[in-house]
């Protein structure tokens, strides 16, 4: 994962910035329903915390500098190295302006796009908070865990992520689970007809919170896209729920850890049992569904 370096190039998925049609309605979902802590707005963007980071989710209406996923880079040297690699591979790489950095609460950043057109911010020194995380309801959220991304150009997107030092842990059909640290995956690429964020996943304490949130969503009449379920490859339990604009937020827990030993990515068939060991199915989200069901 470190590509021969003493330190990794990237260390975490640190935020998602989302463009939504009605920020206040989406904000109500994110805080009152899903359970993230709303913090001070900045420049018309509504921001939320999920852990000790200054913010991990923000909602805005400005599509010019709209949705992006933040990836934390080790340091400016690593940022330079990634920039060089991506340019070599022909990806667009742009240095973030001071105002773009401020809007992202980071010290420096490269703004890029993978082949599908998903905007990826490579950021150095994202801001932490001195105050502990204090959520509005007891959803049991521990931290922002990772993202699922829709991919229209499977091979090129994979080249992009590999240039950042990510490795494929396992395949389900052509769904690629990408590892950037000691966990099975933090990023999953789902073949799709369009680009965009498929889901943002937040780790909860245990199975108890997955199930409590499942009953909470049923009582609140929030649509559960899939789950409670468990990914066969990563052993991660999940509950995918849907907010305004088809936004999917997920509670997750129990993902397998992977030690540093060389490991071959395993291939699972694209069927219902690979996507959920327990038997849950997604009816309406094609990326989460096995064909023929």
């Amino acid at each position: 994962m470190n590509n021969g370096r003493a330190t990794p190039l990237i260390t975490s998925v640190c935020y998602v910035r989302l463009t939504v049609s009605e920020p206040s309605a989406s904000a109500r979902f994110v805080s009152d329903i899903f359970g993230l802590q709303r913090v001070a707005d900045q420049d018309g963007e509504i921001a939320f915390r999920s852990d000790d980071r200054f913010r991990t989710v923000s909602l805005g209406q400005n599509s010019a500098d709209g949705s992006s996923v933040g990836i934390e880079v080790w340091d400016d040297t690593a940022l330079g190295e990634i920039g060089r690699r991506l340019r070599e591979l022909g990806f667009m790489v742009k240095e973030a302006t001071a105002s773009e950095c401020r809007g992202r609460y980071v010290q420096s950043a490269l703004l890029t796009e993978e082949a599908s057109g998903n905007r990826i911010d490579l950021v150095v020194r994202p801001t932490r908070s001195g105050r502990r995380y204090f959520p509005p309801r007891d959803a049991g959220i521990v931290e922002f865990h990772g993202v699922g991304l829709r991919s229209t150009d499977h091979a090129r997107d994979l080249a992009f992520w590999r240039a950042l030092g990510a490795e494929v842990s396992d395949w389900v059909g052509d769904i690629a689970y990408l590892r950037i640290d000691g966990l099975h995956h933090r990023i999953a690429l789902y073949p799709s007809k369009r680009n965009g964020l498929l889901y943002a996943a937040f780790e909860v304490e245990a199975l108890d919170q997955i199930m409590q949130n499942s009953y909470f969503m049923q009582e609140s009449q929030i649509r559960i896209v899939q789950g409670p379920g468990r990914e066969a490859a990563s052993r991660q339990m999940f509950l995918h729920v849907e907010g305004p604009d088809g936004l999917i937020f997920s509670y997750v827990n129990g993902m397998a850890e992977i030690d540093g030993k060389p490991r071959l990515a395993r291939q699972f068939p694209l069927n219902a049992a690979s996507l959920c060991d327990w038997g849950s199915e997604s009816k309406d989200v094609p990326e989460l569904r096995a064909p023929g069901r």
Partner: protein
Amino acid sequence: MIQLRDVSYVRLGSPDLESAENFATACLGLQIAERGKKDLYLRSDQRAHTLCYSEGDPNDQTVGFEVEDEASLQEAASTLEALGHAVHAGTAQEAERRKVRAFIGFRDPTGNHIELVVRPERSGRRYFASRDAGITCFSHIGLNSTDPARDERFWTQVCNARVSDRIGDIPLMRVNAIHHTIALVRAPKAGIQHINHQVETSDDVLRSYYFLNERRVPIVFGPGRHPTSGARFLYFRGPDGMIFEYSVGVDEIEDEDTHRPRQFGFEPTSFCMWGAKPAGMPLPNS
């Protein structure tokens, strides 16, 4: 005092053994041990059988508890007779049908048919399930009670049961280290309220939830988690209306001498800490 060691088996009457067999194998996942003329023996663990369907009235429901030896059995018979319970001494033939060395039968104060047995048969072959439900053993029963306080006295004073926790005035009682073997349930008449089998992991509870749902087996409570025993559970309805439970992670009472029963309020969160609500299954006090 009557020393119960463990719950041993349940015997259920059923007018339709074929349906019972279908459910027990295709849904519940037990192993057929033996098909008699009028009896169907089912295994769930290392014992030769833990559930027996007998051709007959579904109201005929019996729970067997294991006691130490034949001397304990004789002692239990005298204790019960002294208290005015009619005691039936099992014949050799009846004992054979139950796969036990000897037994007595009686009714508890509510009228539940109870048998005390000696040396129930084990099997030399390991348990091999008919479907991969993850069952590890038959573990406990919910028992109807028309007067929980009176029946608690019977089970804890005449027998050796100890109260592990209470929900309202409903006691969960143990006869060994396992949190409960007998859960009393307030009901208008005698009967077995549910039959519990333990499964390996919480994955098995969730898998069975989706599996049984797809087969249109009525799920009556769960998936959920009991705050009392800590067990993750799923209750569903089988033939003749009998409720079966899968659960995993039942606490053990570590210190018999210092354990004090905890009191939980009679409310839904005392039965499920996840938020599941019973559907088609009354809570034990209503």
